[in-house]
């Protein structure tokens, strides 16, 4: 009897398992595997090259540039998105007029596809005529080619990412803020706590689980959100705004160097794993789960 049940169980699980293995686990393992082999070209089949791809990577100045850029991109977008999202959430969770409209307005950037957002922002950044240069013009400053010059290209992209994801994160913070009973803030206010104190001593610790969740998402996004790079800079000028995932795309699908792309992918997944796990352990000790 028990055996029959097991057979049934496996039969029922089989389709899902098959799909999971075929489309998730197998490609992942295949990627790691590929990174130790050379790229097959023409009639030349792939040969085992050991760590050659990794050595090439470490000596690749564009890879180093992409890593540095991605680090800067992450270090700015993560805290800035969280801070912006939390400020917006705090603002619209209060008793203010037109609260619903404001929440909508803050959330709108998130529902737009990043490609569309990039096009809108390209317009903002347009040298001479764009929104930013119009404003600068009012104060008598000259035009700047925001996305076209190496010193600002990366930051131009960074700003778009923050603008795009902050509204999404705000929703999580808004939900978290609403789970905190009003009486906690009232009790603290009666004790003479300022709004500042109430925020840091009560609100902030209580929304810590949400902050953790959001920061993990922001980290993943920092390696994943590159759509706008395609539209705005293509990683240029002179690789000034190249990010890791964009570089992987370049290697894999423009130069068809699949083995090298696999190697880069392994590195990216490894980084994401380390960061994600690290964040959980680091913050877990300071998080209070109710």
């Amino acid at each position: 009897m028990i055996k029959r049940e097991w057979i049934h169980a496996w039969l029922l699980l089989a389709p899902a398992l098959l799909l999971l293995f075929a489309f998730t686990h197998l490609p992942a393992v295949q990627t790691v595997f590929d990174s130790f082999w050379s790229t097959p070209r023409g009639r030349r089949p792939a040969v085992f090259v050991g760590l050659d791809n990794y050595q090439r990577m470490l000596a690749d100045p564009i890879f180093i540039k992409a890593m540095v850029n991605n680090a800067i991109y992450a270090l700015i977008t993560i805290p800035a998105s969280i801070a912006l999202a939390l400020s917006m959430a705090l603002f619209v969770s209060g008793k203010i007029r037109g609260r619903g409209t404001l929440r909508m307005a803050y959330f709108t950037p998130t529902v737009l596809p990043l490609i569309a957002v990039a096009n809108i922002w390209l317009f903002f950044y347009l040298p001479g005529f764009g929104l930013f240069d119009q404003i600068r013009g009012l104060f008598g400053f000259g035009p700047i080619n925001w996305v076209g010059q190496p010193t600002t290209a990366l930051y131009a992209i960074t700003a778009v990412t923050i603008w795009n994801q902050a509204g999404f994160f705000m929703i999580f913070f808004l939900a978290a803020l609403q789970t905190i009973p009003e009486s906690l803030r009232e009790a603290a206010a009666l004790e003479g706590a300022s709004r500042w104190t109430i925020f840091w001593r009560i609100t902030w610790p209580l929304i810590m689980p949400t902050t953790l969740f959001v920061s993990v998402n922001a980290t993943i996004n920092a390696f994943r959100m590159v759509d706008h790079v395609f539209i705005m800079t293509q990683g240029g000028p002179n690789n000034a705004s190249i990010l890791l995932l964009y570089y992987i795309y370049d290697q894999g699908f423009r130069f068809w160097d699949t083995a090298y792309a696999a190697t880069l992918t392994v590195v990216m997944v490894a980084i994401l794993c380390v960061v994600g796990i690290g964040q959980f352990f680091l913050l877990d000790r300071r998080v209070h789960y109710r």
Partner: protein
Amino acid sequence: MSGIHVSELSKRWGDVHAVHDVSFEVEPGTLTVLLGPSGCGKSTTLRLIAGLDDVSSGTIQIGGRDVTNAPPAEHGVAMVFQSYALFPHLSVRENIIFGLKVRRVDAAERDRRLKRASELLNLSELLDRRPNQLSGGQQQRVALGRAIVAEAPVCLMDEPLSNLDAKLRADMRVEIRALQQRLGLTMVYVTHDQVEAMTMADTIVVMNQGRIEQIASPRELYTRPATTFCARFIGTPPMNLIPSEHVHGHEELPPGSAIGVRAEDLHLDSAGVPATVESVEYLGADELITARIGAAKVVVRQPARADTPSGTVGLAWSPGVAHVFGPDGKRLEEAQGI
């Protein structure tokens, strides 16, 4: 010592008149209970005194100082919330001294107050726990502890016992009252439970639909209710209201008047007002006899040893125990001594 002086206080939420022209006084060192059914404006009144909501009109003085528009911290009150409002991420110790830290009371003084409060409330063993590791009664004590260490002259409590079981509620009732008297606190205590009000209060303020019905001591409230609302809200079973046209000697009262007699003041007497027995409820020592006089329902309490009546009986009461209420529900003073 600081008393509270509330005068012509009103609070509107849009169209809802939550508190309507409420005035009362709390003497220093006494316990005043705000009593009334759910939704009558007790919590709102308390929150106005604490400064947590803005008043629509009227004034509030605490310790002789007008605090009507002052922020909550300047009202000089401690408050125990119905939900306790303990900070879930802080230990019991941190919860209790939260306010002292905010006010930058020095560490030695903080420890002294914490020690005193935790001994007073048997919390010493629990100081390192989180609120979610405490029972309801223990959480209640922590909330009390937080109110005590503030050493505010005025303490406000909003239905602090409503989340506890009956046994614990009876214990805490006594404990809070003892604490209030020992520390000489001026306390305003909100409840919908008449037993809590009767056992704890120096003064009871009975509220109904945002207005005050009566301000009196528990004894006076029971023996001389000012309105039919108070008469029926205080006491179990509620006071019987017999339409005056059924009672001899009251024909001169305006129509709609009522004679109020408590169940324990009624007895069966064939010479009394005729009534039809409907049911008898046995309570052990006593029994409650439900009868009808015309359309009005009347409950009589009598010792269970007496014969259980049935059919038509007469109901009588001794002179001096009846209360007379006019058609507007207000007590008619001149009719005393019937």
